[in-house]
């Protein structure tokens, strides 16, 4: 594209912003650590051992999780909005989060039904991760099987919504028969959390994330073609079914693992693509995709920094912060630019 040069400045600004946000994010927390202490801990041996421990084992993995969550949700939101040509679509329209919720609900709420021993073994961190992955995978698989029988892309959207309400109903029934303690645990999962991940977990997360990322990068050309609509895309020789499958697969890998490791984080996936389109004023995915990655990471790091409440012991639910911070930004941009770019 001829005007690609003009985007360079925006990309450099965003990258610098990302770096700043990352440093600020790992510098702030319940324990106050001076900036030189942060750098020592990241790049060498820290003069204070507990500083090193906090940075290396708590703040760094959390910041990296924030990067993966923000960018991953941004990408999957963008993919879904383009695939369904719907500005209201987000990463979870295909029932990924509702599937994960069902899996977690079965483990957390259902533990009473399946007996005590089950409850003890099944509520560790990994079991929630596995339950969420299995749940989202199974729901997505059902959506895919059903939607392979329909030709219209819009029908897939509705099928996804229907599956979401079925799983929602099951979770509702489970909640009705649960104890207050179980309910609280389930609700807390629903708040989302970026912390508490070990390096090992971050490693697994990053691996699956990379596969999803590569799939989305290979879909860039198809996504641009889809901007013209299904008919034009087909007339340009695009294999519609295959591209659709790749796009859905990329989304489910990204959004699925994010939900598994960090909970159903709302809003970011819907808002980041809009924010990016408003700022960059383009529909070209070659520019949008990297921009969404940068924007998603920046916003998520900012939200996490706020949720942490520097120098206090409190951590606010990340899910509330993303909406509290993100929604006003999107409203402000929409009012200023006066029309929704799509």
């Amino acid at each position: 594209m001829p005007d690609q040069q003009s985007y360079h400045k925006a990309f450099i600004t965003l990258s610098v912003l990302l770096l700043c946000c990352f440093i600020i994010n790992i510098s702030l927390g319940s324990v106050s650590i001076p900036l030189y202490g942060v750098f020592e801990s990241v790049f060498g041996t820290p003069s204070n051992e507990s500083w090193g421990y906090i940075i290396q084992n708590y703040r760094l993995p959390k910041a990296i999780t924030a990067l993966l969550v923000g960018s991953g949700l941004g990408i999957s939101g963008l993919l879904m909005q383009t695939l369904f040509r719907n500005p209201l679509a987000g990463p979870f329209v295909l029932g990924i989060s509702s599937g994960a919720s069902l899996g977690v609900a079965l483990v957390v709420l259902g533990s009473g039904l399946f007996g005590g021993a089950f409850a003890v073994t099944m509520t560790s961190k990994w079991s929630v991760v596995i339950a969420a992955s299995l749940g989202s995978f199974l729901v997505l698989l059902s959506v895919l099987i059903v939607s392979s029988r329909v030709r219209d892309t819009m029908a897939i959207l509705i099928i996804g919504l229907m599956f979401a309400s079925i799983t929602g109903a099951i979770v509702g029934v489970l909640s009705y028969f649960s104890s207050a303690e179980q309910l609280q645990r389930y609700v807390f999962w629903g708040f989302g959390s970026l912390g508490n991940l070990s390096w090992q977990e971050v490693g697994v997360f990053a691996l699956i994330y990379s596969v999803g990322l590569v799939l989305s990068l290979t879909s860039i050309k198809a996504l641009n073609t889809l901007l013209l609509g299904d008919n034009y895309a087909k007339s340009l020789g695009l294999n519609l079914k295959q591209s659709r499958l790749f796009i859905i697969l990329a989304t489910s890998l990204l959004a699925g693992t994010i939900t598994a490791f960090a909970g159903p984080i709302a809003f970011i996936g819907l808002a980041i693509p809009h924010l990016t389109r408003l700022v960059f004023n383009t529909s070209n995915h070659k520019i949008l995709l990297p921009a969404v990655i940068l924007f998603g990471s920046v916003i998520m790091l900012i939200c996490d920094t706020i949720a942490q409440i520097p120098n206090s012991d409190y951590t606010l639910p990340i899910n509330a912060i993303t909406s509290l911070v993100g929604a006003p930004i999107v409203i402000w941009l929409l009012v200023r630019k006066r029309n929704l770019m799509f």
Partner: protein
Amino acid sequence: MKVHTKHIILKTEDLSIGYRSKKNDHVISKHINITLGKGELIGLVGGNGIGKSTMLRTLTNTQMALSGHVFINDKDVSTYDALALAQVLSIVFTEKLTSKNLSVFELVALGRQPYTNWIGTLSEIDLQKVNHALELTNITSLKHKKCFELSDGQLQKVMISRALAQDTDLIILDEPTTHLDMYHKAYTLKLLKKLAKETGKTILFSSHEIDLAIQLCDNMIVMMPEHVVSDSPCNLIQQGVFSTLFPDDLIQFDAETGSFRVNK
């Protein structure tokens, strides 16, 4: 007949079009034998619901033929793979654009998709073809405008330009003159005529503008309930085809002026 000497781009052999259902086939039209030559402008006309769209869908291989064959460049369309077909046939649909946030250049450049690499990078040749397509349709000055800033008439030129950039032997347009005022209707069809002559591409369009088509087309395909006729506009007038096109209680074809008149 001249037919033997011309270079044929599209040919149908005893084609039947319609919808196939489990119980029985619903035939819309059968025994269709038409040939489209290189560099010709061909108009497809017929009343509402007569099956023009089904015809175009069958010719472009988006719908299965009930029987018979469609050949493009002597090869059956059903045997083309999607990418190869996209390099010999481009289509301009009636449907509205989904994303109007693309710039005119970006949209026309999407016509190069069948030729670009995995991420859609435009090569020198691609850029040349895109710019040439913009020049041919006189929209170079609109290059950096966004599609939502354009009028319907300008947008139609952009879509035609996109089809040109796809660089195919055959361009098929589904009702390119809908939503346009009288001036732009004539302008668009005149443009198609010019493009067919200058680029040697075969251009087939469906339209309700029978009077304009009679004046501009090299050949016309007239769809009627019983059969499909294809010939030059003059011959079709002489055969009185247009006077049987519609029920004559309301409008009548005037062979002298080549247009329809409302009964007073």
